[in-house]
């Protein structure tokens, strides 16, 4: 067994959320930079250049990339030989989030669903924990904005709808969102499992590095087909019209029940903020 103190976890979470909100990952910066070359619309090109200038401004001025610094989505891969000491794991994550959003001057975007009263410290975070072999704790943070999250959906398709049904559903969601989820977007598609598994897979899919293809050839081809079709919708950067609507599409698939074909679509905005650390 290896002991990990909650103080270490609190401080890691605090640093990760501040860093993620301010510094756009290099590969996302590069993807937008490449998109400037690919985009055919002059307005679209200008928007993409604004996004690069924005990433530069955020880094230089230590300012959040976007004012919507999101709900604090946190993924934990807890090694089965890890022993957490000093307090509860979930409480440690919450405390780290509380400190990050205060110290980092990040916007608190969490409220009561009906009264809309702000919780005041961006808690509770969304925590997904998985038990894995080993004695390490891997933390991945994904501050997720509301504009893109609003265009996600889980749908239980009829098995006969198959691949085409999945593609139609994904395109329908992209078109429904149009300019609202801040294109160029990253599209995550989760297929199989059950109702909640498909949703989790779609979230994991948006976290796959841009440009990385699924190991399964059929799914890799489907990712490319979907990316092509999404970029032919004409939506373009910010929805002002153009040829770069999505930076990438990722699919994650697992087996499902004989009677079901669960599919989930999760959309990520161009400000794809993600950071990870292993303790």
């Amino acid at each position: 067994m290896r002991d990990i103190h909650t103080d270490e976890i609190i401080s890691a979470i605090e640093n990760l959320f501040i860093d993620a909100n301010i510094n756009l990952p290099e590969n996302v910066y590069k993807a937008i930079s490449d998109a400037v070359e690919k985009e055919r619309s002059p307005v679209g090109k200008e928007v993409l250049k604004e996004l690069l200038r924005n990433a530069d401004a955020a880094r230089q001025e230590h300012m959040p990339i976007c004012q919507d610094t999101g709900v604090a989505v946190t993924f934990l891969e807890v090694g089965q030989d890890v022993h957490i000491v000093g307090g509860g794991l979930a409480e440690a994550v919450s405390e780290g989030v509380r400190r990050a959003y205060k110290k980092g001057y990040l916007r608190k975007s969490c409220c009561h669903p009906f009264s809309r009263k702000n919780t005041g410290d961006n808690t509770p975070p969304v925590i997904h924990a998985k038990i894995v072999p080993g004695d390490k704790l891997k933390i991945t943070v994904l501050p997720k904005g509301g504009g893109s999250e609003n265009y996600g959906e889980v749908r239980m398709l009829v098995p006969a709808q198959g691949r085409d049904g999945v593609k139609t559903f994904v395109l329908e969601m992209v078109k429904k969102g149009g300019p609202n989820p801040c294109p160029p977007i990253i599209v995550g598609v989760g297929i199989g499992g059950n109702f909640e598994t498909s949703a989790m897979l779609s979230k994991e899919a948006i976290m796959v590095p841009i440009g990385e293809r699924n190991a399964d050839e059929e799914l890799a081809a489907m990712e490319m087909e979907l990316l092509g079709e999404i970029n032919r919708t004409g939506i373009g950067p910010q929805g002002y019209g153009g040829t770069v609507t999505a930076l990438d599409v990722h699919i994650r698939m697992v087996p499902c029940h004989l009677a079901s074909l669960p599919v989930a679509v999760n959309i990520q905005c161009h400000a794809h903020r993600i950071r990870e650390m292993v303790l």
Partner: protein
Amino acid sequence: MTGKARRTDGKRNSYSMEKKIRTPLEGDVIRLLGAGEKVLLSGYIYTARDAAHKRFAETIKAGGQLPLELKGQVIYYCGPSPAPPGRVIGSCGPTTSSRMDAYAPKLISLGLKGMIGKGRRSPAVRDAMKQHEAVYFGATGGAGALISRSVVSAEVIAYEDLGPEAVVRLEVRDMPLFVINDIYGNDLYETGVERYRSGPLY
């Protein structure tokens, strides 16, 4: 061409067709704006989003006085992140405008001339813009750090209790925007998308 990751200088602006305008917006300026044009806006604008709009509507319904005189003014759908020490404002990009669609036609009829946000507007809002000569500008969503550089001053003028949703009077200088809906019924979300669409009907 495949570009390598490249840093821009963070200041220069290469778009050639930009037009400088000032608030309050007057009819002669508004009539010259066309969907798809880039503008640099200067002067005072007011932030208001979901909760502030709800209060505006309640105030109007009760026959009360709004915290700002709407005539010729521009409302920015924005809930900024907190200002770090020594800064005027935090990151301050636009939020999705459609959530304010239920309230916008009334405000337009009372003299509001401009709205800044992101995303499509409802037919009712577009009709009100045509009828009362108002325009809708898009600020680039997710470019809040860049937009904050255009903000010269910020002062909460109402609903401080709403936190990030309070009404803030911003003085802006050369805020980069695109005209989405002009007073002639043009909509960049329709014309722009139609122009670059090569797949099935969008």
